[in-house]
């Protein structure tokens, strides 16, 4: 049966993009790992080894947990697929989700872990690392990712048994990661990986097995058709939000748990921000702290929230109403700004706590970049961004249009000289002009829902 799950997944991706796109992702992974490995010694000069291992473990764990949650909890929103066939075939839900777990475990190993390992091997002549070192690193990444992925499988099972248990499990994981990173509590995987590698490997495999077996055992053999009744909230929300589409979108956001997902979405970027500051500080040999550049970085990461919004609902029914897909895009954009503000404003205020004079420019550049990125994303991908992720042409255009101005703003805002200020002003004006231009074109481009 696993064979058919693998084929289905492959064809699902092909339906979203061209055949070669399927292999673009591992190629990217291989390339970026090889490039990253070349600078490994510079990175290790900025962090102590414990911090470096912790960062690798936490980021790959969160990656595994994130993709797993997206798969297990997100798949139920999709239409007819093999995971959902238990309803019409003599198959238990327990078994179909086990197959989904195995399928993704195989794909992530083939498309992520192996290309990463290949990238590390390719870089050996330049990085100066040994085969043993990169193999040890690759196994650490593999185990951390599978720990995260298996934890997401268990969290999914808990979600269907008792929701409070699911949230308690989530909180416990993240509390452990944060406390562990800051060495507030013993962080076993890291300590063991450094001091007793064989014990670390054994315990990690054991822990993955426990998570996996627990998840499999408690997954119900059949999901009861829970009739999820809700009180009518539309009228009350309409009074607050006025616009009918925004009202509906905010109801979706709250009922779909998008606020929680968005907050979690920021967790990984915050770690990356932390690394970024450390690297910049190390490269320039001084402590660099620019709340403005961090705010710009934050706005770059915020685009993930837009993709959450676009998969929240099955928008096909909108095509039966007198609406254009552009109307949905506009609503996504407003909702995006509301959510992103709720999460980012406290962070920006926190970043500026010791340098209040930077508060206004931080907010100005944050919102400018949010507006610009939203305009570009919506123009390129429309009301659904899922297909965009599999189309290398769109990803390339997006990277070019979005990352370049973001980098210019980030680097320029590290220093407050007149030259940098001029660059920021010029870049900002260009971004506003481009945004207005693409928004006007989006209006004409995005009419239909097909």
């Amino acid at each position, binding site marked *: 049966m696993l064979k058919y799950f693998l084929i289905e997944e492959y064809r699902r991706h092909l339906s979203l993009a061209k055949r070669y796109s399927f292999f673009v992702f591992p190629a990217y992974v291989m390339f970026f790992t090889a490039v990253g490995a070349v600078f490994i010694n510079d990175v290790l000069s900025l962090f102590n080894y414990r911090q470096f291992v912790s960062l690798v473990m936490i980021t790959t764990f969160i990656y595994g947990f994130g993709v797993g949650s997206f798969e297990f909890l997100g798949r139920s*929103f999709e239409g007819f697929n093999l995971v959902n066939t238990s309803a019409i075939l003599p198959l238990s839900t327990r078994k179909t989700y086990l197959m989904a777990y195995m399928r993704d475990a195989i794909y992530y190993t083939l498309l992520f872990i192996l290309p990463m390992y290949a990238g590390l091997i390719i870089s050996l002549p330049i990085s100066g690392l040994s085969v043993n070192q990169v193999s040890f690193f690759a196994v650490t990444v593999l185990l951390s990712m599978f720990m995260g992925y298996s934890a997401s499988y268990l969290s999914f099972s808990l979600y269907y048994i008792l929701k409070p248990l699911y949230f308690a499990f989530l909180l416990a994981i993240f509390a452990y990661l944060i406390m562990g990173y800051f060495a507030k509590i013993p962080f076993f995987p890291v300590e063991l990986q450094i001091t007793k590698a064989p014990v670390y490997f054994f315990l990690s495999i054991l822990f993955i097995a426990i998570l996996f077996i627990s998840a499999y055992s408690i997954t119900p053999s059949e999901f009861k*058709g*829970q*009739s*999820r*009744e*809700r*009180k*009518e*909230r*539309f*009228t009350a929300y*309409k009074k607050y939000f006025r616009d*009918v*589409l925004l*009202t*509906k979108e905010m*109801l*979706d956001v709250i*009922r*779909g748990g998008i606020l929680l997902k968005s907050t979690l979405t920021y967790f990984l970027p915050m770690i990356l921000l932390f690394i970024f500051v450390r690297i910049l500080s190390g490269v320039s040999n001084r402590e660099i702290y620019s709340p403005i550049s961090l705010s710009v970085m934050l706005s770059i990461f915020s685009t993930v929230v837009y993709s959450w919004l676009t998969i*929240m*609902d*099955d928008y*096909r*029914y909108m*095509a*039966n*109403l*007198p*609406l*254009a897909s552009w109307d949905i895009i506009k609503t996504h954009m407003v909702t995006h700004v509301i959510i992103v503000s709720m999460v980012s404003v406290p962070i920006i205020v926190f970043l500026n706590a010791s340098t209040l004079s930077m508060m206004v420019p931080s907010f100005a550049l944050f919102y400018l970049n949010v507006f610009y990125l939203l305009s570009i994303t919506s123009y390129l991908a429309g009301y659904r961004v899922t297909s965009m992720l599999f189309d290398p042409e769109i990803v390339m255009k997006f990277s070019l249009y979005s990352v370049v101005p973001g980098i210019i703003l980030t680097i320029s805002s590290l220093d407050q000289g007149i030259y940098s200020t001029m660059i920021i002003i010029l870049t900002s004006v260009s971004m506003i002009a481009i945004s207005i231009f693409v928004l006007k074109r989006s209006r004409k481009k995005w*009419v*239909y*829902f*097909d």
Partner: protein
Amino acid sequence: MKTAIHVRNLEKWYGKKHVLKGLNLEVKAGEIFGILGPNGAGKTTLIKVLTGQTGAHGDVKVAGVDPIRNPVEVRKKVGIVPESESVPNYLTVEEYLLFVARVRNLPQTRVEEAIMKFHLEDYRRVICRDLSKGTKQRLMFAAALMHDPEVLFLDEPFINLDPVYQRVMRKILEEYIAGGGTIFMATHILEMASRLCTRVGILLDGRVVKIIEDLKNLEEVFLKEVGYA
């Protein structure tokens, strides 16, 4: 009699696939016009073009509006019950109908009327995607008829309904026609087409190849046209 749907030389391509090939059609107001055809003949595409859900080339007017040039405008005047079920993920039945009423600028009283008319009272607080297929279909009917559309487009409308609700829906559609509405319906159920429709068109390979006015021997005529008799 006033023309509800006018189509001349309609062409539609999906990439390299030529789906509608110079299609011509005329439907009078007050008619129940059925469009029959084998799978892949272009029935759903035709409905999508006529309701402004996809672009095309040709001279088309639906309820006096050109759906190719004014795709959103035409949907103010028509109602659509699509073939594939598509309902909101997080709205309840009542909230979805309130949403549709707001989008169409209808008074809130229409929501209650629709809930009663389509027997949705027991489901008003149920999240739409948790409904059975048949109840989803009734909900889509309710949403499509709330604004008394000039033309109602139905794509395989009875496929998920049990015999009781097929009958209820038939009665509702008859009332709608008696009130001056027009129906354009794509279906595979020949018995339903012959019982409900005033005229039937056979769509084959992207063109309407025959218009049938005498529906007594619809099955034989249809099978002969598509080459199975």
